[in-house]
């Protein structure tokens, strides 16, 4: 059992948990993830590690309410327990001295990109971060990301805050501008990662994305997480989750993410009716 040391509601449907997991905290690196299972009947889902504190023995995760599991998770409070918390899994993000690195975060992935931006900067890179959300209500950690970046650009789809538009627009401007961009890290919804990759492709700038296919074990034993990269099948949980965005077969990823749409709907409806939560 893993204790939730702190719960924070970042925005109405995005939450942060600081979880007591000293062994995981000792080993965690930017870009890695954990697999969690809430309770005895729960499914195993992957969540990216947003932060860790070896001294405190804690690992921070940030998640958005989408299906049954994340809604159930959102009901837990400080002091509650998560049954299983397994990690750190996956290969860490490749951190090196590249020069100028643009970190693009869509939606709640601002939490995931934080440790990467921080590590890139600590390595001596100039870090330009772009964060985007649908609207002002869904934005969080602007100041936190600014602190670990040399420059920060914020966008909202509806223009309710900062620059109106998608993250790909400032990304394109940076690529077209005078300064050289040596590497792009794009993390967020799959569709956003795809379009970031499409944006950078003509410029030939290496673009690393963090894929989020459905997973079960997260250790390479089931193949549920298979993705196609450069025409080769890879298991995202052990060969990734980071891959070259220009090589990813995005359509396959989108299709495989939809495998259980019907079942997810059924599960969610049943959970809602049982728990009396009707939205």
């Amino acid at each position, binding site marked *: 059992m893993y204790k939730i040391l702190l719960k924070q509601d970042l925005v109405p449907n995005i939450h942060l948990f600081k979880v007591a997991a000293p*062994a995981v905290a000792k080993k965690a690196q930017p870009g890695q993830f954990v697999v969690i299972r809430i309770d005895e009947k729960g499914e195993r889902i992957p969540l990216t590690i947003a932060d860790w504190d070896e001294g405190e023995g804690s690992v921070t995760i940030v998640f958005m309410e989408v299906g049954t599991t994340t809604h159930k998770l959102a009901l837990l409070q400080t002091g509650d327990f998560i049954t*299983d918390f397994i*990690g750190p899994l996956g290969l860490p993000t490749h951190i090196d001295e590249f020069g100028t690195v643009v970190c693009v975060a869509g939606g709640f992935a601002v939490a995931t990109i934080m440790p990467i931006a921080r590590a890139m900067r600590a390595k001596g890179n100039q870090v330009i971060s772009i964060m985007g959300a649908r609207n002002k209500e869904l934005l969080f950690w602007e100041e936190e990301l600014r602190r670990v970046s040399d420059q920060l650009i914020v966008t909202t789809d509806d223009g309710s805050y900062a620059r109106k538009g998608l993250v790909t627009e400032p990304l394109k401007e940076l690529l077209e501008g005078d300064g050289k961009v040596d590497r792009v890290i794009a993390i967020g919804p799959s569709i956003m990662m795809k379009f970031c990759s499409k944006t950078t492709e003509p410029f030939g700038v290496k673009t690393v994305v963090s894929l989020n296919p459905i997973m*079960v074990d997260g250790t390479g*034993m089931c*193949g549920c997480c298979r993705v196609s990269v450069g025409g080769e099948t890879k298991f995202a949980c052990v060969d990734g989750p980071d891959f070259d965005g220009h090589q990813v077969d995005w359509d396959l990823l989108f299709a*495989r993410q939809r495998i259980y749409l019907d079942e997810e709907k059924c*599960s969610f409806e049943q959970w809602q009716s049982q728990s009396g939560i009707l939205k």
Partner: protein
Amino acid sequence: MPKLNLNREPMPRQDPKIRSKNFNEVALGYSAEQAQAEANRCIQCPKRSCTEGCPVEVDIPGFINAIREGDMPEAVKLLKDKNSLPGICGRVCPQETQCEATCSLAKKDAPIAIGRLERFVADWERANMQSASSLPAQPAPSGKQVAVVGSGPAGLTAAADLVKLGHSVTIFEALHVAGGVLMYGIPEFRLPKDIVQAEVDYVASLGVKVELDSVIGKLVTLDELLNNDYHAVFLGTGAGLPMFLNIPGENLNGIYSANEFLTRVNLMKAYRFPEYDTPVKVGRKVAVIGGGNVAMDSARCALRLGADEVYIVYRRSEVELPARREEVENAQEEGIEFKLLTNPKRMLGNEQNWVVGMECYEMELGEPDDSGRRRPIVKEGSEFIIDVDVVIVALGTTPNPLIASTTDGLETTRWGTVVADEETGKTVKSQVWAGGDIVTGAATVISAMGAGKRAAASIDEYLRG
């Protein structure tokens, strides 16, 4: 000499029509009378050839004699002396190629049903004895610590033997449950999970510490275990990496590795979705590719989930099917259709990326290959299409490279198995032993247990040396 009784007591089983719709155990187990009658058939021959056929050398004539004399606690004691997991072995061991093959009555085609009797004793113990009463006396502590990586039959056996010898033992298991393939692979209807859990609990009650959710190679490396407190490590991480066909269309939705399908169904209990949160696609027409036990288990799970038609697609003929005869018969009785001498060429999908068909070749058998089985050859121009909406690939597994790739100085073969001495389980890396599927590739529960036992003996010798 009394007359030989050549009538094996049949195993009562659920009716095929009923059992193909539920996940309850198929074989129901002997009654006390049946067990008595079967035990009475044993001629207690002095050769004890059955024990020689047992990879862990259980005193088979001894425990059978105890059943005969009605001394069940003695039967339990004799059985558990060599085998910590009798309820499991009695259910899933291939006795027909081991103890029952070497039984003196095998020549008359009527070997004693040793596996069924073993199961009877184990089930009797669970129902009638406090587990504490069968615990061996506490050994004197040796002051040595051993880490066992993986909690399948190899790891559980090594851990149980080592703790009984006075060492302090911790098992590290990657999954959230201990038991390995016994929990995530072999289905409930063949091996009920509460039986596995009871036997895992027994090993824990001996004093073994079990750390779940611990992926060695990620959370801690093997070298870190050796540097921090552990005097020896036993690797029993199995062969958990699924093989695929590498044919076009294999990543379509609806195509599973057997590992994924069985993990969802057995470990995550998807057959009770949505009560349990993990879903699995229930196909209408399901093709399972492969002919081993894993393929039979997958097919029978798919049927129980509610598929209309389930096919086993295998490239050789019936005689070459690697699955246990009994499991093939069970599958056939339940209505699984065997498409033999058939091999997939590619998977066909619709616009939503769902598998809808499987293009296959007809095959014929040529000369024997290295494995001694006749080589399957494609019949040119024989392609035909099978309609399917779920495909399960059960072609076998190889060891997961996670540990070997994060450890200095372990030797692996080109199949990814770890090189270890057959007699002792010793690897080329000092203080490290290995056994079970990680060394042999996918094999059997009992061979993994045998390897765990031999390694425990060797580790004990090293620690005391």
